[in-house]
């Protein structure tokens, strides 16, 4: 995006302290992370533990969580800053893995975990030494999370959990998984439990995923098999039977934070593409100065600028305690589709060079395709929007 529009888009939403945090994170990522990305992507693996530990040492993880739970007591806007800085990185394997840890699993422990779960999982996670992943999807339950077949049978002191989870981002790197399981008597939305399951627990087997279009360095676990795994009651997040409710409640804010990352990716791609087209000439003329190109990029600029305001509005409602369900679904839908479109158009504008898998724009195109599928598909967002508008579907 143009610098003017980016500055304008943020006016009034961020404090000076958050601007300083942005500068600090930008500098840290530029020095410590971005230079290594080509090699990491080429190897298909990122040093997630090192990345998170470096963030933890700088006090940049869990900023919004209460101090008594290991956080810094700041507002969710600090997490938006992190999300936007992650979007500046040329690998969303990094962006998504950090997001899963800091903005998908950690919040559930901070908000619904008991004191022992906080000590065991959250505090070490915020130092970056205990990696968290989210094991929700199953072969028969993607967006329809209520259909999970993994079962938690109550036993003395806890649960015995059996089932298989799949498509776990950062699952190969993680030390513990947030697992949604049904109780034997589950009746949606009740009768589920959300449990923190250490990878080291007896009965846990983790296997890599088949090759994927993108997210090739995200350590995607193809399966997390749970065979009669004992989980103590103290590692349950939320009440007995309230696991699905706890999970669904978490989806709403996490989608807005993810949308901020997606839109930052889109803005970065547009900026990089502009810079490249300014240098690229065909038939004796700069490609970037051609009217068709100018208009095409300006349309995308306008769309990103508008979607950012929706994302910030959603964050604001959430922070201020307002109803953010509709905005959450709307911005997840809009930002996912838009980021995919931006990535596709930018890929095209890079010409043949964009077809090389090592090119940043190629990776961005492959990585961004997941936005419309993960953490609630576009179709789920449309369904949610229709329901929230009162357009019944029965």
């Amino acid at each position: 995006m143009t610098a003017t529009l980016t500055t304008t888009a943020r006016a009034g939403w961020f404090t000076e302290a958050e601007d300083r945090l942005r500068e600090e994170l930008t500098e840290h990522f530029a020095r410590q992370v971005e230079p290594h990305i080509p090699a990491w992507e080429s190897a298909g693996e990122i040093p997630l533990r090192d990345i998170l530990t470096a963030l933890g040492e700088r006090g940049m993880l869990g900023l919004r969580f209460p101090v008594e739970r290991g956080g810094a007591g700041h507002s969710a806007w600090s997490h938006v800053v992190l999300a936007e800085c992650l979007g500046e990185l040329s690998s969303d394997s990094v962006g998504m893995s950090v997001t899963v840890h800091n903005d998908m699993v950690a919040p559930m422990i901070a908000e619904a975990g008991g004191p022992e779960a906080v000590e065991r999982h959250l505090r070490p996670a915020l130092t970056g030494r205990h990696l968290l992943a989210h094991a929700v999807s199953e072969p028969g339950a993607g967006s329809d999370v209520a259909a999970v077949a993994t079962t938690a049978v109550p036993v003395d002191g806890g649960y015995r959990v059996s089932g298989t989870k799949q498509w776990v981002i950062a699952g190969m790197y993680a030390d513990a998984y947030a697992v949604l399981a049904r109780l034997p008597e589950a009746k949606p939305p009740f009768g589920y439990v959300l449990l923190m399951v250490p990878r080291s627990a007896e009965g846990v087997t983790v296997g890599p995923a088949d090759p994927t279009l993108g997210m090739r360095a995200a350590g995607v676990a193809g399966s997390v098999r749970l065979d009669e795994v004992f989980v103590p009651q103290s590692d349950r997040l939320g009440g007995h039977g309230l696991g699905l409710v706890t999970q669904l409640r978490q989806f709403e804010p996490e989608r807005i934070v993810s949308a901020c990352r997606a839109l930052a990716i889109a803005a970065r791609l547009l900026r990089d593409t502009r810079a490249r087209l300014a240098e690229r000439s065909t038939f004796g003329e700069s490609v970037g100065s051609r009217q068709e190109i100018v208009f095409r990029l300006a349309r995308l600029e306008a769309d990103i600028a508008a979607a950012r305001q929706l994302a910030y509005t959603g964050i604001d409602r959430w922070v201020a305690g307002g109803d953010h369900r509709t905005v959450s679904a709307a911005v997840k839908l809009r930002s996912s589709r838009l980021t995919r479109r931006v990535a596709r158009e930018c890929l095209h504008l890079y010409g043949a060079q964009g077809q090389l898998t090592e090119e940043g724009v190629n990776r961005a195109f492959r990585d961004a395709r997941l936005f419309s599928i993960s953490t609630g598909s576009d179709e789920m967002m449309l369904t949610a929007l229709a329901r929230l508008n009162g357009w019944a579907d029965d």
Partner: protein
Amino acid sequence: MTELSTAPGLSTAPGAPAPPVSRAPGGIPTEVFRKQLAEFSAARGELLAADRWESQDPPVRELLGAAGAAGLFRAAWAVDEADRPRALWHAVELHTAFARLGNGAPGAPLLTHLDVATRLLATLPAAPAGLVERALDGRTTAALAVTEPGGAGSDLASLTTAVRRDKDTLTVTGEKWFISNAPYADHLLVLADDPEAVTGSRTGPALLLLEATAPGVARETLDTSGHTGLTGRIRLDAAPVHTVLAPGGHGLLRLMRHWIHERVMVAVRMTELASAVVDHAAEAAHHRRTFGSALIANQQVRFRLADLSAQVLETRAAVHHGIRLLAEGGCPMAYAAVCKYRAAELLRTAADEALQLSGADGYRTGHPAQRALRDGLGLALAGGTDELMLLQIDRG
């Protein structure tokens, strides 16, 4: 805005949870005005009836008079600099309410009156005394005449209308068209070239005030698909200049500043028109039945409406941010262009899809989506075309 100055950030004392404070644009109470608008629409049902606004002679002056007498314009007008945020958010409330009255049609002359003509006049020190005050009371109105036939739409540097000195008087000769409210205006604010620097020390576009009934001024209503009866052609044949509002070389500069405001306000109106037609389409989809069930029972219909509702939310968030920037006195031209382009795109899409969802009923004159589709086409041109907006976005 007080929320912004007290908003907690990372400087909050360690351990203190951030209190829930909104940083969103607005936060200015408008409930009293909203009630006033509801009372106005209830009392003026006949004046606001959609069919009256489909004629070639809609009751524009009656509406402006009634709205002025009811204090609607003054409520949306800043008495001083500090009052600007309050006034702007009241203007948003005004245009939001009128987007849902009379198929949105009466809101067009209202916006032209308040946020184009009167707002521009108020920025011009040379404007005749008392004119703005009378306009705020709804007793007089002006039309901004810029566009010309023959190519000078967005390209304002190639004006053919010109001002010249004829003995002791300045006169204007030329033609303007697609001028909103021109058939109903008492005054015309005419952008004209000043090739001989007769209005000041420089050549170039000047902004001039003419009396609409002066000799040499001929007006006619254009037969247009949208903004029915609201748009006019003006022929000027040595028409006398009443006041030089901005001398040669300064006219366009004045307008450029004004257009930032106008574009954001037009974007508010377009967004709310889109919102109104989406809501109407959703409501109608519950009643319209096809193949034995309500239209809304189709997933495809719900998804289409859900998608449109998400676009409305997004565009509203964008234009409200534009209002915040205006209130703080610093909306860049590129951001105003984002607002206008996005809102035009939204209105076009929403009106077209809403019409489709209504079937043949939507094709009928008198249907809100059909009216919005027609008006939306004109709004994508007025005050700067989509293409001009894209160029301004590109410039950043």
